[in-house]
């Protein structure tokens, strides 16, 4: 892979990691806070449905995962499986699409469902 592409991917992974660090923190704190009071699934859904701020937050979360995870997986595949090149990139593009599709579907589920 070209040096400039590698450098850009590293940058994309670094930035997405920063976003994810914040998102995971908010995500976990929200879960702990919500569960402390013993909210049921129905009660949680009542709060998330139609909540644009909630949806926007998780869209950002999902998109960061889409950027972050395949780059990390590529590095693991290269180093541990010695798997490189086009077949790896196609596979990881599929992983990215899968992560994005299932993630956004889940966000839509709790937003509109």
């Amino acid at each position, binding site marked *: *892979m*070209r*040096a*400039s*592409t*590698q*450098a*850009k991917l*590293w*940058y994309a992974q*670094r930035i997405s990691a920063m976003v994810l660090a914040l998102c995971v923190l908010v995500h976990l704190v929200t879960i702990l806070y919500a569960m402390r009071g013993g909210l049921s699934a129905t009660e949680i859904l009542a709060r998330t449905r139609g909540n644009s701020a909630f949806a926007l937050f998780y869209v950002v979360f999902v998109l960061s995962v889409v950027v972050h995870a395949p780059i990390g997986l590529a*590095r693991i595949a*290269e*180093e541990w499986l010695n798997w490189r090149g086009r077949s790896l990139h196609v596979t990881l593009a599929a992983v990215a699409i899968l992560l994005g599709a299932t993630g956004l579907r889940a966000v839509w589920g709790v937003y509109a469902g």
Partner: protein
Amino acid sequence: MSAPLSVKIWRGGASGELVAYEVPRRDSQTVLDVVTYVQRSIDPTLSYRFSCRVGMCGSCAMSVNGVARWTCRTHVSKVVIGDTLELAPLSNLPIIKDLTTDMSAFFDKWAAAKGQFKGDSNRRDDFSDIKPSSPERKKVDAAIECIGCGVCYASCDTVTWRPDYLGPAALNRAWTLANDVRDTAQNERLRAVAGDAGCHACHTHTTCSERCPKGIEPTAGISGLKRMAARAAIRGELD
């Protein structure tokens, strides 16, 4: 006088073995003293490298009880386990014989990382004015004292995993030049050090920084190169 040292030393090439020797203990004895004793008093065919004996040349680095060190600056009392010492050639480098390694690949990587200064001034030009307090010069100062002993390279797990990785010493050298404001080969060098066999392969284990006898932190320089390469790539300067 305390009990003699039980020293195991790697003998032979890659398929060699550890051979046991008994060496008398002395006060303030260094590991290099031990190796020298074996060669001069027990087996003159033992091969090893040393020169200055005072931590200036970097040629006596070996693996001492599994850890790469300068043997001349390592007191036996600091590293001995019971009465035993195990001495082997540096890891990650082909063994020539006994304690000597072939360091060609190590130095070839310095060249591959564009470790040569490239300027555009000549002898008729005035001296460059670089303030010691400037941020670039401070970064160079923190990394410039490398004497190429190979301790960091031998300690790096990433080099073990992928032998084409440039390694901490070559990248540290590139980092000093990347911060040299007189150097004119910046993008060329960033292209050479970026990528999965260059700075982006580093896993930030920091073993190089921990083991460097000069207290240099190649990990910091490698991180700096990643940031520098990212900025250059975004500006399209690495294409």
